[in-house]
């Protein structure tokens, strides 16, 4: 098969392109030498420097808090928005609403960041920790809405009707039936929102204030001054965290899949 050899080559080159820079970055975080091109032996030196860099550590702590709070708010709002999109076929301004869900996904960050900043100034709100959270909540909720929406579209409505039919009022039905069943999508949405918040430089730069310097802002200001292995070290840790998160998530999916297959076997055997 010539086609499959072509495919294999394309994929190998493509994934090499995607991963080699990251791998290099990780390797050089363990480089004893300060120069990128010189391998001075294995060292954890840069991790120590990083650890004692108070500014960097403070920024990491701010970023973690911003990430958790805005991802949580974004998940709540995004889940509601997804419900509104899927379950309400008609309400005034539905077009505008779905437009506002999709637009932030592609809107250049400089526009989103600047416009939100001007809102805060207009409302006379001091910029800082909470303005970054509001900004992040606003754009992450749209991603959550898309993720949860795709789950809701395949949701069997008769499950909810069955609960109503058995005497369970609508709000209780949502918490007892709908929410537990869409939970995997909600969690995925939260994780996506958290990483997006962790990752954001531009929107945070516009909306931050004194004492609310996030990690990307810190990294950016240092990167502008040149490549330092210290940045490689913190990047490696971030990559490591994300990789661990993804591995845990995929193990979870795999387990659920195995359980499903086992259940099907049980069901096939299970005669009276």
């Amino acid at each position, binding site marked *: 098969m010539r086609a499959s050899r072509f*495919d294999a080559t*394309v*994929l190998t080159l*493509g*994934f090499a*392109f*995607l991963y080699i*820079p*990251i791998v*290099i*970055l990780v390797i050089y975080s363990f480089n004893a030498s300060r120069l*990128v*091109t010189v391998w001075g032996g294995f060292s954890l030196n840069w991790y120590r420097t990083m650890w004692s860099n108070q500014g960097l550590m403070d920024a990491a702590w701010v970023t973690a808090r911003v990430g958790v709070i805005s991802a949580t708010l974004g998940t709540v*709002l*995004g889940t*509601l*928005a997804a*419900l*509104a999109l899927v*379950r309400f*076929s*008609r309400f005034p301004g539905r077009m*505008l609403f*779905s*437009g506002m*869900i*999709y*637009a932030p996904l*592609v*809107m*250049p*960050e*400089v*526009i*989103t960041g*600047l*416009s*939100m900043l*001007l*809102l805060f*100034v*207009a409302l006379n709100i001091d910029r800082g920790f909470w303005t970054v959270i509001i*900004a992040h909540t*606003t754009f992450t*909720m749209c991603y959550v*809405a898309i993720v949860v*929406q795709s789950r809701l579209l395949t949701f069997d*409505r008769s499950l909810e009707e069955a609960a109503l039919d058995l005497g369970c009022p609508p709000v209780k039905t949502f918490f007892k039936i709908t929410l537990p069943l869409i939970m995997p999508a909600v969690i995925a949405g939260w994780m996506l929102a958290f990483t997006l918040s*962790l*990752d954001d*430089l531009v929107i945070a730069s516009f909306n931050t204030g004194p004492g609310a310097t996030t990690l*990307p802002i810190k*990294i*950016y200001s240092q*990167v502008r001054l040149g*490549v330092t292995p210290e940045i490689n070290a913190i990047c490696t840790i*971030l*990559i490591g965290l*994300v*990789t661990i998160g993804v591995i845990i998530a995929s193990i979870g999916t795999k387990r659920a899949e195995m359980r499903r297959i086992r259940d099907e076997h049980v069901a096939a055997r299970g005669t009276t």
Partner: protein
Amino acid sequence: MATVSETHTAKKPSPARWLVVAVPYVWLLLFFAAPFLIILKISLSDTAIAMPPYTPLFQGFGALGDFASKLDFENYLFLTDDPLYIRSYLSSLRIAVISTFLLLLIGYPMALAMARAPTSLRPTLVMLVILPFWTSFLIRVYAWIGILKPDGLLTLLLQTIGLLGPNEQVQIFRTDIAVFIGIVYSYLPFMVLPLYAALEKMDNTLLEAANDLGCPPLKAFWKITFPLSLPGVVAGSMICFIPITGEFVIPDLLGGADTLMIGKTLWTEFFGNRDWPLASAVAVILLVMLVVPIAIFQNQQKKVV
């Protein structure tokens, strides 16, 4: 069955049902839609050297008529006067168009190869494409600095294999080429995934039918596969083209002083020159340029849902 799920339940809006719509709606109106009106207004106001660096906005709604009389297109006139801005816009569009084309050129064969891979392998391949997306954008751009800079790894590699002399260096860093590399690298997952989604759901028997009817594989690709994947091509292109046009981080970190991109210009006006009204005007024009692509994107999404 005759259960049309539209107009599903009786029209008795309970408060809880309305909160579901109202809460995210109000949030988005306040924090996404309203800022655009403000940006429009500020772009029409004078620069004042006060802090905040523009003449105050809301002096109550009674001032609205007042505002209308003071409409001021000075900032926009300034944008058309100074060739820097026009060149920035054109350069942004040029870079976005070329990058999107490059992304298609690299992304399509990858997506096709993924879609043709054995079913058991596909989830892993999708995972491999998504994984870099989960790592920081900034980190991924940063990684390229170490590779592309004149005394970086690419120079070292080319010197080692003898393509460059010991005293020669790769002069890519801080040029448009570095910007293209950075953009293609960062946006590749966004291009591959929609293409893959379109290619993967294609019925394989269509190609078999084409072959059976005497159409050779390469021709079958152009007659069957490619036309059917066009929605994916449009979606992927829009998802990449729109944010690339306003990109800031990549031209700032990898591009040179002569790399003009409007996102960078806006950033400089805002953070460097502290001219907020002008920055707003720059943003408004950028938004106007992107209205058509965004409309295409929205339309595409609606079809998906």
